[in-house]
C-alpha cells in the first residue's frame, strides 16, 4: 500500500502516535543533540551555535584530572563498588532462590517471599532513611550503646564502612526480589527428573548439583551479562544518598561526579564528555561479556 493511502486509511492510528512522536523528539532526540557540547566550551546563553569548538579537550581533561578529582580515583571507586556488588550481591538471589525452592510447604514459602520482596518497593530515600534511623549518630544503635555504657559508633561517617554498607543495602533491597526470575526458571523443572534421581540413589545435594543448578545456569549468565551493562552505573541514587563529606574519597563515582560538576558547578561540556566516556565503557563491557559467554558455549543476550 502506498504511504499516502496508508496515511488516510490509518489516520486515527497515526493521530494516536502523535504524542509519542512528540515525546521522543523532545525528550530523546533533542537531548541527544546536546551531546555535541562535549566537543565545545558550552554556555547556555550563547547556545550550541555560539559556543566555541574545542575538539577533544574535554576528554583530555578527563584523563588529566582537575583540582577536585583524579580520573583514577573516580574510575577505581566506580569499579570497586561494581566488583563488590558482583561478588557479594550477585550470588545472594541465586542462593536464596535455591533455598526457597527446597521449601515444600507452600504457605510458608509465600510468607517468606512476601517478607523478602517488600524492601524492593521501598524508595532509596526511605531505605537510607531507615539505615540512618538505626546507625546514625543519634540512631538507635548508639542510644542502646550509650545505655549500656559503651562508646558510640559512626559507621555512616566512616569511609571504611561505605562499601560494605552499600552492598548490604543492595542485598537488603533487591536480593529477595531478584529470586523471582530464578524461581520461575526452577518451576519449569520436570518433577520426574527428581523422581528418577531418587531411584538412582542421588541425595539432595546431588539433585541440586545435577538437576536444579543446570536449570538456572542460562538465567544466571543472562543476568550476569545484563548486569555488566549497568556495571558503571551501580545505583546512583543509593550512592548519592549515602555519600557525605566524610566518605567522599570513596563515594565519588562517575554519576555523582557528573552531577556535581554538571549541575552544581555548571561545567556542562566537561560533565557531558564524562557521561559519554562512561557510556562507552559500559558498552564495551556488555559486548565483551557477551562475547566471552558465546566463546564458552552459552547463548548470551543477543
Amino acid at each position, binding site marked *: *500500500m502506498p504511504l499516502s493511502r496508508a496515511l488516510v486509511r490509518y489516520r486515527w492510528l497515526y493521530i494516536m502516535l502523535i504524542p509519542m512522536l512528540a515525546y521522543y523528539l*523532545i525528550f530523546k532526540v533533542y537531548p541527544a543533540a546536546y551531546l555535541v557540547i562535549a566537543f565545545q566550551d558550552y554556555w547556555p546563553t550563547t547556545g550550541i551555535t555560539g559556543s566555541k569548538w574545542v575538539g577533544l579537550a574535554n576528554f583530555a581533561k578527563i584523563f588529566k584530572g582537575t583540582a577536585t578529582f583524579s580520573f583514577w580515583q573516580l574510575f577505581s571507586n566506580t569499579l570497586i563498588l561494581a566488583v563488590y556488588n558482583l561478588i557479594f550481591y550477585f550470588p545472594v538471589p541465586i542462593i536464596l532462590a535455591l*533455598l526457597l525452592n527446597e521449601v515444600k510447604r507452600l504457605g510458608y514459602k509465600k510468607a517468606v517471599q512476601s517478607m523478602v520482596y517488600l524492601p524492593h518497593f*521501598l524508595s532509596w530515600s526511605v531505605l537510607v532513611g531507615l539505615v540512618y534511623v538505626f546507625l546514625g549518630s543519634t540512631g538507635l544503635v548508639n542510644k542502646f550503646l550509650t545505655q549500656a555504657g559503651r562508646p558510640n559508633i559512626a559507621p555512616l561517617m566512616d569511609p571504611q564502612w561505605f562499601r560494605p554498607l552499600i552492598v548490604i543495602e543492595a542485598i537488603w533491597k533487591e536480593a529477595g526480589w531478584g529470586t*523471582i526470575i530464578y524461581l520461575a526458571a526452577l518451576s519449569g523443572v520436570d*518433577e520426574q527428573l527428581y523422581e528418577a534421581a531418587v531411584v538412582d540413589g542421588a541425595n539432595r545435594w546431588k539433585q541440586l548439583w545435577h538437576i536444579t543448578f543446570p536449570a538456572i545456569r542460562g538465567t544466571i549468565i543472562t543476568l550476569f551479562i545484563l548486569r555488566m551493562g549497568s556495571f558503571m552505573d551501580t545505583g546512583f541514587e543509593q550512592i548519592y544518598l549515602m555519600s557525605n563529606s566524610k566518605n567522599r574519597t570513596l563515594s565519588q563515582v562517575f554519576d555523582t561526579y557528573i552531577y556535581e560538576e554538571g549541575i552544581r558547578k555548571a561545567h556542562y561540556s566537561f560533565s557531558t564528555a564524562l557521561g559519554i566516556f562512561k557510556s562507552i565503557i559500559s558498552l564495551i563491557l556488555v559486548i565483551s561479556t557477551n562475547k566471552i559467554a558465546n566463546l564458552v558455549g552459552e*547463548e548470551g543476550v543477543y
Partner: protein
Amino acid sequence: MAMVKNRSAGSRIFDIFNYILLGFIGLVMIFPLVFVILGSLSVTGMVGGFTAFSWDAYKFVFATKALSRSTVNSIIITVCGTAINIFFTSFTAYALSKKFLPGRGALMGMVIFFMLFNPGMIPNFLTVNSLGLLDTWWAVWLPTAISAYNMIIMKNFFQGLPDSIEESAEIDGCNYLQVFLRIVLPISKASFATIILFYAVSHWNSYFTAMLYLNDDKKWPIQVWLRQIIVLSVGGWSDKDTLSEYAKVPQDSVKYAVIVVSTLPIIIVYPFLQKYFAKGALLGSGKG
C-alpha cells in the same frame, strides 16, 4: 513428590535448618520497617519498648506546613504523573500493536534504540532547562512520560486481543480511536491496572528527578524532605506554634512518622504489587 518420601536424617536436618534460616532472613528484612511503624505510634518513640499508643507524631507531621504540603505534593505528582503516563503509553502501545501499520517497524526501532541509549543526565537537564520546565512539576512528569518497558508490556497485551472485535466495530463505522476508547479500554482493565501500579510506584518513590529539577522546596515531594530531615538532619522545617503544641512528641517518633508516611501508599497496595510486579519482572526478563 517421591522426593518427600524416604528422607534421610541429613535431609531432614537440612529442611529444619532451611526453614529457620529463611524465616530469619524474612524477619530481618522487614524488621527495620516494622520497628519504625511501631515507633511512630509509640509515646516514647520505642525508647524502653512500646509503652503506650499515640497518634501525636502523625498529628505533628500533618500540622507542620513543610511536611503536610510535601505529602500533598507527592500525591499530586503521583496522580497527575500517572495519568500523563497512561495517556502517552496506552495510545502508543495500541497503535504499535497493529502489525499491519506502515512505519511501525521504524518506530519500534526508535523505542528500542532509546531503551539502550540514554543521552545522559546533563543533556536531559539542559533540555528541561531550555524548555523552561525547571522548578515546575512538568519537569518530573514529561521527561518520563513513556517508559519503553511498560509500553512494550502493554503493546504485547493488546496484540493478544482477538482481531474480530475491531473488525466488527470497523464495519459499524467506528474509527480506531473510538474502537480503542469504547471497546479495547473496557476489556483491558487488568492490563491498565498493572501499568498504573508500575507508574504510580515509580512516581511515589522517585527522589532524584525531583531533586534535580525542583529548587523550590514548596514543590518538593515527601521523599526529598525525608532525606533533608533524617539523612542531612537539616533544621528549621518545623513551625514554631506546632512545635510548642506538640513539645512532648519525641523527635524520633516524628522521624519514624515521616518514614511511614513516605511508605504508606506502597504498603497499602503491596498485596497487588507482589502479584502484578512479579509478572512484569518475568515479562521484562526476555529469556527468563
